C-alpha cells in the first residue's frame, strides 16, 4: 500500500489495543480500518478520523474489554483503598448521603455560575468577524458641569465619509439607526409589530448573518428586506419566502430578499427580527450626507492587515471639518470600541473607561459560586474529620501491622477524591436539570459547555482540587494518631482538635446569615419601589403604538365609537409612552429664572383627553378641557417637581417661554399642576415634566378600560370596534401594568438569584450542622444514658446538646451583621429611591439564622435525649 494514504488516528488505535481483549484485536482493527477507508471515500479526512474515534469509544463494552489484573503492590493497594472506601460508604449510608449530596449541590451551583461567566465572556462571539469589528464612539467635552462624555450616536455623513476615505482600512462600514426601531410589517391580512434595524448594505456581511434563504447582499436593493426565521415562519409557514412581498408601516412594499436565523440572546443584535435598507429610514441617498442629526450608530470591520489602535487614532479628528460651529467647541473626537469590549468593558465616566456594572455583576456571581463551593468543601472536611475519629481503631490496626503514614494519607486522599468525583457527576446531573430554570431566571439561553474540552478540563481540575482540599485535613490529622492510644481508645480530642471545626462552622454561618440579610433587603427594596406612588393609574390602561398610517385622522371617530361601546372609558394620545423618559429640553424660560440655570425638563405633547385617560392626579389648577378649545398650543400642565424647580408658590396662570414650533407657543400658560409621574426607573428620582397641549394626533394612543367589565370582554369589544373603524390596522396593544413591571426585571432577577443562593448556602450549612450534631450526640451516647439514669430531664439534655451550636451561631451573627451592613449600604447607595437598611432586617436575618440552627440541631438532640438509656448502656 501507498505510504501517503491517510491512516486511522494513532492514539485511537493505541487506546483500542489497550483495552481490547487480545483475541479480538485482529478482527476488530480490521473492521475499523475498513470502516475508516470506507468513510474516507464519502467524507472528509477529519470526519473519518472522528468516526474512527467514535467507533473505538463504542467498543468499550463488557464483552470486549480485557480483565485487568496486575500483581504490582501499588495496584493491589489502590484496589484495597477503593474497596475500603466503598464499604465505608455503604456502612454509613446517611452520612455518605449528606456528605456527597452537600458537595454535589455546592458543585452544581459552581457549575451554573461558571456557565454564566462563560456565557458573559463569549458574548457576541457568534459574529464570525468578532476580532475585526468595532463601533465608532464619540468623545465630547461639553465643559463645565457636564464634563466629558462618550456617546455612540453619530451622523450618517460620518458613515459615508469613513467608507469613502479609508477603503484600505475598513472592509465594511455599517450605518444603522441608533435605537432598535419598532415597525408594523404586514403580509396579506397578517400584521405584526416587529423590532429591527435599518442598515447600510454592508451590515449582513459584516455581522455574518446566517442565511437560510436568499443572500446577504439583499439590502443593496432599497426595495428589499431581510427577515428572521421566526418572523418568516409567522408570515409564510414553511414556504420559501424569497421574493414574497411584505409591507412596512403600510407604506412601503418590500421584496423579501433573504431569511436569516434569529440572533442568539448573547449577541448585541439579539431581537433584530427584520433588517431593512437604511435609505428607507433616511429617505433616499441625500439622507446619507447629514451632519447635524445624531441618530445613527456606526460600526466598522477592519481590513485583515489593519490594526485597531492605529486606525482608532487615524480617524480621531475625522469629524472636525464637518461639524457646526457650536459643536466644534466641544471638540468631538472619535475612537473605535472593539467588539470584544462591548459587553463587559463599555461603561464610561467622564470620558474614561470604568469597570462596568455587568462586569461587577459577573465578578459578584463568580465569587458567590466560589463561596458556595467553599462552604460545601468545608462541610465535607468537617464531617470527614468528625467521622474519622470513629475510625481511630482502624488506623491503630493499620499502623501496628506496618502501615506507613504516607500510605494512610494516600488512603484518605483516595477516599475523598473518589467521593468528590462521584459528587461531580451528580452535580453535572443537577446542573443539567436546573439549567432551564436558571435560564428563565437570568433571561439567557445557556447550555452546559459539554462539548468544550477546556470546560471538562477545568471541571476535573476543580474536582480533584476539591477532593484534595477536603481530604487533606482528615488525612494529615488522622494519620498523626499514636497507634497505641488509638487502639486503646484513650486518645482524647482536646480543644485543639475541635477548634478548626468550630471555626469552619462559624465561617459557614457567617456567610449564610449575610446571604439571608441580603435577600431580605433586596426584596424589601423591590417592594419599596413597587409601593411607590407613580402619579397615574397603570391598572386597566392599554397603550397602543399607531404603527399604521390608516390610524391617523381617525382619532375622533375611534374615540367616540370606543366610548359608546362601553368597553372603554376614555382614549387619549401623547407623542411618548408612559414608560420612558424620552423628549427632553433645557431651553425653557420662565419669570424670575436665573439666566445661568437651565435644568432639563421631560417635555411631551398630549391631547385633551390624555389626563383623563391615564388618571393623573391634579394638585392645583385644572385639567385641559375641550371647553377651552383655544388653549391648544398655548396651555401646559406641569408636575409638582417642575413647579418646585421653577420656584413657583402659585404657578396657575404663570407663563413660560419656549421657542419650539413643534410644541406651539412660544408663550405658554400653566393651567394645572399634577403629581410627579414615574416614567423612568422606579428606583430613580422623577424627572420634572411639562405637558404641552396639542390638537394634532400623536403616535401613542392610550385606552382606559371600563373597570366594570371583565378585562377580556372589554378588550374583545374594543378590538371589534377598532376593526370596524380601521379594518386594515393591527390592534396591537400592551398593558401598561406589564410594561411598568418590566422596569423591575433586573432587580427581581438579582432578588431571585440571591434567594436561590441563600437557600443553597443554608441547605449546605444545615446538612453539615446536622451531620455534626448527629455525630456529637452519638459520641456522647453513654454520657446521655448515665445522665438520664441519674434523672436528667429531656429538656435539660436538649439544652446541653444544643448549647454549643447556638454559641457558634451567635458568634457568626455578630460577625455577619456589620459585614452585611457595610456591603448592603454600598448596594443601596446606587438607588436614588431606596428603602432604609432597617435594624429589623438585620435582626430578622440573625433570628432566622438562629432558628435554623436550633431546628437542625434539635432534631438530633431530642432524638438522643429520648433514647432509652438501656440501649446505650447495655453493651460493655
Amino acid at each position, binding site marked *: *500500500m501507498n505510504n501517503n494514504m491517510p491512516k486511522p488516528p494513532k492514539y485511537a488505535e493505541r487506546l483500542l489495543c489497550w483495552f481490547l481483549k487480545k483475541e479480538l484485536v*485482529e*478482527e*476488530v*482493527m*480490521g*473492521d*475499523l*480500518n*475498513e*470502516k475508516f*477507508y*470506507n468513510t474516507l471515500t464519502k467524507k472528509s479526512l477529519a470526519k473519518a478520523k472522528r468516526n474512527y474515534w*467514535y*467507533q473505538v469509544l*463504542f*467498543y*468499550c*463494552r463488557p*464483552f*470486549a474489554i480485557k480483565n485487568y489484573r496486575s500483581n504490582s503492590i501499588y495496584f493491589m493497594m489502590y484496589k484495597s483503598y477503593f474497596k475500603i472506601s466503598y464499604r465505608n460508604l455503604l456502612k454509613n449510608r446517611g452520612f455518605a448521603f449528606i456528605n456527597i449530596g452537600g458537595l454535589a449541590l455546592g458543585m452544581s451551583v459552581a457549575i451554573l455560575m461558571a456557565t454564566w461567566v462563560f456565557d458573559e465572556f463569549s458574548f457576541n462571539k457568534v459574529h464570525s468577524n468578532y476580532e475585526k469589528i468595532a463601533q465608532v464612539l464619540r468623545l465630547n467635552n461639553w465643559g463645565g458641569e457636564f464634563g466629558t462624555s462618550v456617546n455612540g450616536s453619530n451622523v450618517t455623513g460620518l458613515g459615508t465619509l469613513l467608507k469613502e476615505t479609508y477603503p484600505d482600512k475598513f472592509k465594511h462600514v455599517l450605518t444603522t439607526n441608533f435605537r432598535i426601531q419598532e415597525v408594523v410589517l404586514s403580509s396579506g391580512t397578517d400584521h405584526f409589530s416587529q423590532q429591527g434595524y435599518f442598515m447600510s448594505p454592508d451590515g449582513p456581511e459584516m455581522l455574518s448573518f446566517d442565511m437560510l434563504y436568499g443572500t446577504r447582499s439583499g439590502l443593496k436593493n432599497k426595495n428589499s428586506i431581510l427577515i428572521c426565521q421566526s418572523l418568516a415562519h409567522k408570515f409564510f409557514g414553511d414556504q420559501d419566502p424569497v421574493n414574497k412581498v411584505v409591507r412596512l408601516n403600510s407604506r412601503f412594499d418590500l421584496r423579501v430578499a433573504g431569511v436569516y436565523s434569529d440572533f442568539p440572546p448573547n449577541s448585541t443584535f439579539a431581537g433584530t427580527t427584520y433588517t431593512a435598507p437604511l435609505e428607507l429610514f433616511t429617505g433616499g441617498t441625500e439622507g446619507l450626507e447629514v451632519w447635524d442629526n445624531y441618530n445613527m450608530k456606526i460600526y466598522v470591520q477592519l481590513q485583515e492587515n489593519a490594526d485597531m489602535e492605529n486606525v482608532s487614532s487615524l480617524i480621531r479628528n475625522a469629524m472636525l471639518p464637518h461639524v457646526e460651529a457650536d459643536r466644534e467647541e466641544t471638540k468631538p473626537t472619535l475612537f473605535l470600541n472593539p467588539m470584544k469590549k462591548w459587553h463587559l468593558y463599555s461603561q464610561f465616566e467622564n470620558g474614561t473607561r470604568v469597570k462596568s456594572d455587568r462586569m461587577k455583576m459577573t465578578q459578584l456571581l463568580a465569587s458567590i459560586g466560589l463561596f458556595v463551593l467553599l462552604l460545601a468543601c468545608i462541610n465535607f472536611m468537617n464531617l470527614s474529620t468528625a467521622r474519622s475519629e470513629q475510625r481511630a481503631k482502624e488506623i491503630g490496626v493499620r499502623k501496628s501491622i506496618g502501615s506507613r503514614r504516607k500510605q494512610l494519607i494516600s488512603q484518605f486522599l483516595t477516599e475523598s477524591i473518589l467521593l468528590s468525583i462521584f459528587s461531580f457527576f451528580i452535580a453535572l446531573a443537577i446542573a443539567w436539570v436546573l439549567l432551564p430554570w436558571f435560564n428563565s431566571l437570568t433571561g439567557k439561553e445557556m447550555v452546559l459547555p459539554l462539548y468544550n474540552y477546556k470546560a471538562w478540563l477545568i471541571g476535573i481540575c476543580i474536582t480533584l482540587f476539591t477532593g484534595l482540599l477536603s481530604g487533606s485535613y482528615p488525612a494529615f490529622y488522622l494519620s498523626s494518631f499514636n497507634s497505641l492510644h488509638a487502639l486503646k481508645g484513650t486518645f482524647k480530642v482536646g480543644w485543639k482538635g475541635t477548634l478548626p471545626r468550630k471555626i469552619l462552622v462559624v465561617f459557614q454561618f457567617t456567610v449564610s446569615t449575610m446571604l439571608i440579610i441580603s435577600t431580605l433587603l433586596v426584596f424589601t427594596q423591590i417592594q419599596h419601589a413597587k409601593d411607590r406612588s407613580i402619579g397615574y393609574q397603570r391598572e386597566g390602561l392599554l397603550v397602543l403604538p399607531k404603527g399604521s398610517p390608516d390610524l391617523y385622522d381617525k382619532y375622533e371617530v375611534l374615540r367616540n365609537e370606543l366610548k359608546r361601546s362601553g368597553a372603554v372609558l376614555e382614549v387619549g394620545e401623547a407623542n411618548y409612552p408612559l414608560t420612558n423618559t424620552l423628549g427632553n429640553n433645557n431651553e425653557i424660560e420662565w419669570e424670575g429664572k436665573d439666566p445661568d440655570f437651565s435644568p432639563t425638563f421631560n417635555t411631551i405633547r398630549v391631547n385633551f383627553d390624555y389626563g383623563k385617560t391615564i388618571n393623573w392626579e391634579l394638585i392645583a389648577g385644572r385639567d385641559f378641557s375641550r371647553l377651552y378649545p383655544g388653549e391648544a398650543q398655548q396651555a401646559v400642565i406641569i408636575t409638582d417637581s417642575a413647579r418646585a424647580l421653577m420656584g413657583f408658590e402659585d404657578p396657575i396662570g404663570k407663563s413660560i417661554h419656549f421657542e419650539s414650533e413643534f410644541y406651539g407657543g412660544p408663550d405658554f400658560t400653566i393651567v394645572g399642576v399634577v403629581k410627579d409621574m414615574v416614567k423612568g426607573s422606579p428606583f430613580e428620582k422623577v424627572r420634572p415634566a411639562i405637558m404641552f397641549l396639542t390638537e394634532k394626533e400623536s403616535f401613542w394612543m392610550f385606552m382606559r378600560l371600563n373597570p366594570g367589565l371583565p378585562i377580556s370582554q372589554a378588550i374583545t369589544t374594543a378590538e371589534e370596534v377598532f376593526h370596524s373603524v380601521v379594518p386594515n390596522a393591527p390592534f396591537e396593544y400592551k398593558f401598561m401594568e406589564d410594561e411598568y413591571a418590566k422596569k423591575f426585571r433586573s432587580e427581581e432577577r438579582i432578588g431571585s438569584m440571591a434567594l436561590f443562593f441563600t437557600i443553597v448556602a443554608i441547605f449546605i450549612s444545615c446538612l453539615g450542622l446536622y451531620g455534626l450534631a448527629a455525630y456529637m450526640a452519638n459520641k456522647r451516647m453513654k454520657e446521655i444514658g448515665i445522665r438520664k439514669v441519674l434523672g436528667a430531664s429531656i429538656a435539660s439534655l436538649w439544652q446541653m446538646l444544643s448549647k454549643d451550636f447556638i454559641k457558634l451561631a451567635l458568634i457568626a451573627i455578630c460577625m455577619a451583621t456589620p459585614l452585611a451592613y457595610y456591603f448592603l449600604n454600598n448596594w443601596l447607595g446606587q438607588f436614588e429611591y431606596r428603602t432604609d437598611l432597617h435594624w429589623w432586617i438585620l435582626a430578622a436575618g440573625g433570628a432566622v439564622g438562629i432558628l435554623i440552627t436550633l431546628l437542625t440541631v434539635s432534631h438530633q438532640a431530642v432524638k438522643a435525649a429520648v433514647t432509652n438509656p438501656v440501649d446505650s448502656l447495655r453493651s460493655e
Partner: protein
Amino acid sequence: MKETRLGEFEEVILLLVGILGDEAYAFKLSEEFESQTKRSVSIGAVHSTLNRLSEKGFLTSEMGGASPERGGRRKRIYKITALGERILSEARDFRVSLWSQYPGFAGG
C-alpha cells in the same frame, strides 16, 4: 439455560447474517444495517450483539480472508446455526399468527 427470546435488534442482525452469507462480518453487517434501516449503529454495538448471539448458540463463526484495506488483517465470518434458523422461523410464525388475529388486517 440461556435466554432464547430474540430482541428486535438481534432479530435484524440474525437475518442480515443470513442475507450476507460469506460476507457476514461485523463491519459489513453494520453497513448493511444502516443502509437497510436508515438507522446509524456503531460496529461495537453490532459486534457485541453477534457475540451474544454466538453465546446463545444461534451463530457460529470462523476467521476468514484478509484484504489490503484491512491492513492485512483477517475478518471473523458468522454463520447461522440450525438452532438460529429455527428461532428465526419461530419468531416469524409468531408474528404471522398475531397478524392473522388482528381483525383489521386479517386475510389482507
